[in-house]
């Protein structure tokens, strides 16, 4: 099934995340990832949710999310009209013999070494999901000890912005 990116503006207060997460579980929708952080307006947070499903599912997800009072606005981001990034921290086994090879790979991917020990290297990588996955793939032979990923965040290309408009009726008629 296809992956869809939803950008969701929500009230920035306690309980909102659990409402959104609860909605997904009780209606049987699958979340691939969910990333949340505060926006330029500190009363409002922005969630980037990657949903796995067909058209019907994504429409239902959007409509049900819209019903939550704490959800202010939802926008489906077109893959080609938006930029999406994920940050990953990857701890990989290394020793004197393998260290330079790993460093080369990291350079090719424009990633960074952020920590080093006698037996490990920790890499910070960011980019599209595919890029992070490719780096992970190439590092696997060295022995990946741990990976932490943020999930995708996304923003539209060009001058389009997503903001709260007042006195707006919810997006409804098809």
């Amino acid at each position, binding site marked *: 099934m296809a992956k869809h990116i939803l950008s969701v503006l929500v*009230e920035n207060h306690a*309980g909102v995340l659990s409402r959104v997460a*609860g909605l997904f579980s*009780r209606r049987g929708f699958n979340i691939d990832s969910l990333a949340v952080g505060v926006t330029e307006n500190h009363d409002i947070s922005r969630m980037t949710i990657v949903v796995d499903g067909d058209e019907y599912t994504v429409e239902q997800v959007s409509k049900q999310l819209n019903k939550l*009072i*704490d959800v202010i606005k939802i926008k489906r981001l077109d893959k080609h009209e938006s930029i999406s990034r994920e940050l990953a921290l990857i701890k990989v086994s290394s020793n004197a013999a393998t260290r330079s090879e790993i460093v080369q790979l990291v350079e090719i991917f424009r990633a960074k070494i952020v920590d080093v020990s006698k037996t490990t290297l920790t890499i910070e990588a960011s980019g599209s999901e595919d890029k992070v996955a490719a780096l992970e793939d190439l590092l696997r032979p060295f022995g990946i000890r741990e990976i932490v990923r943020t999930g995708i965040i996304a923003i539209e290309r060009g001058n389009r912005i997503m903001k709260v408009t007042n006195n707006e*009726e*919810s997006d409804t*008629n098809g």
Partner: protein
Amino acid sequence: MKMTGAEAIIRVLEAENVDTIFGYPGAAISPFYDALLDSSIKHILTRTEQGAAHAANGYARVTGRTGVCVATSGPGATNLITGIANSYMDSVPMVAITGQVRSDMIGTDAFQEADITGATAPFSKHNYLVKRAGDLPRIIKEAFHIASTGRPGPVVIDIPVDVQNTVIDFHYPEHIDIKGYKPTIKGHPGQVRKAAAALQAAKKPVICAGGGLITADASGVMLELAEKRNIPVVTTLMGIGSIPSDHPLHFGMVGTHGSPTANYVLHHADLVIILGARVGDRAMGAAGALAKKAKIIHIDIDPAEIGKNIYVTVPLVGDLKHILGAMLELVEAGRNTEWLGGIADWKRKNSKPASWEANGQYAGNGSQKSYIRDKSDVSDVSDTSDVSDASDVADIPETEYVNPKYLLSILSDYLPEDAIITTEVGQNQIWAANHFKVRKPRTFITSGGLGTMGYGLPSATGAKVGRPDSTVVVISGDGSFQMSMQELGTMKQYGIDVKIVLFNNHRLGMVRELQLTRHGGRYSQVFLDSNPDFVALAAAYGFRSERITSNARVREALERMTASSGPYVLECLVDPMEPTL
């Protein structure tokens, strides 16, 4: 103006024109109850918190106003849950106020602590845990706004006891602006034109009337539209009352427990206009097949309902009164003679006379016996009537029963036009839905979505409080009745004049029937043969009561019940094998 949080709550309730609340006190809500003493708001003390929630629901459904219920923290709050979920499923405006343990104790598993905002998130329209007393006026005003507008529903406000005690500078917000809540009211003009054109072009249209019509007070304009083009109307369970039962365009309730004619009309139409209904599985289970055969216009105030369970040709979001009013202007009068004639033919060929009508004798659906043995039995009305008699159920001959369908079909003869019926859940509910003659919107009150046993009696007390001048009758069964019969105490305390028609078949009849049809008659835990003596039980509360055991007694018993003032229990012995349909 300085006042405590508790006083502020009362002030806002008064500003929202709340005249009655239903509740049950406790430690964590005690500052509220103290402040309530200085208010003109009437409080009805129910016998459980669930009773308070159902009563608030009944109050809301008959008045169209927001029902209010109150409970303490922990078990008080969790007891409200069924009532909150029930209101959510049936889109009933309700504000539920719960006490909570002290703010600094939250999360410590304190005595009588329960996370009620977490627990009710799946089935409340919104909820609040109030952290600052200064927020109380805004939050309560918002709660009433959210509960009563758009698609109505329950809103829970959880208020820690220290927040209720905190002194605040009271400011009543005149306006509120909730960024994420702007319900669509007016229908999209282009879609309204499309819907009107589809209606104009249809050869075999049908209106499927849901509960949303009643909520929107749009039954009248729906009827105007139906009459203008002679469109047959079928209803969902929640839509009962949107059209008078005896209206020539009314063809009954759809669904698994609906009338064959209603289902025939629905599934042979070329255009189905779904109004304020969510295409639930019990009402329109074969929605996929339906959408293949017919065009579908779906009008609802909740965009999430449109396209959820059925593919829709013309989706339309907004308030039904606005939209139907606009459509009424756009369509021309029509006759639909051929379509209505076809339905009448089908109905003639396929409907059987009701069992109690055949030869003037009740033939008994469930067994082969004839219960009225001869005419002398019918005329002999005096000596077997056991008014307020505590005679043993075992003494009554097995062959003597009341046919509930017969009683319900004539009940309206004894009631004023604006009389309110509430039902329990089970066979009694379906018997009432299919046989009682409903005449007005907001007079048929039932638990549609959640199907909550024990709803009928407390919702009737709420209905009577909301509409004190209307006769209120509960249609009950022996199973459901025993889930809320402690509310007889509430009726007694406040002299709430509710009439109870209790169909006693000594079974959980709906489940028994299911076990017969789906499990080969292996009956499991459906027997209630050791029921209490309900007539004596009513008498213990000081209510008039009567038990009848034959159809011959029904008319006089209904006359006695409706003529008496004060609560009344009419127990009717029903054949355990009496089928639902």
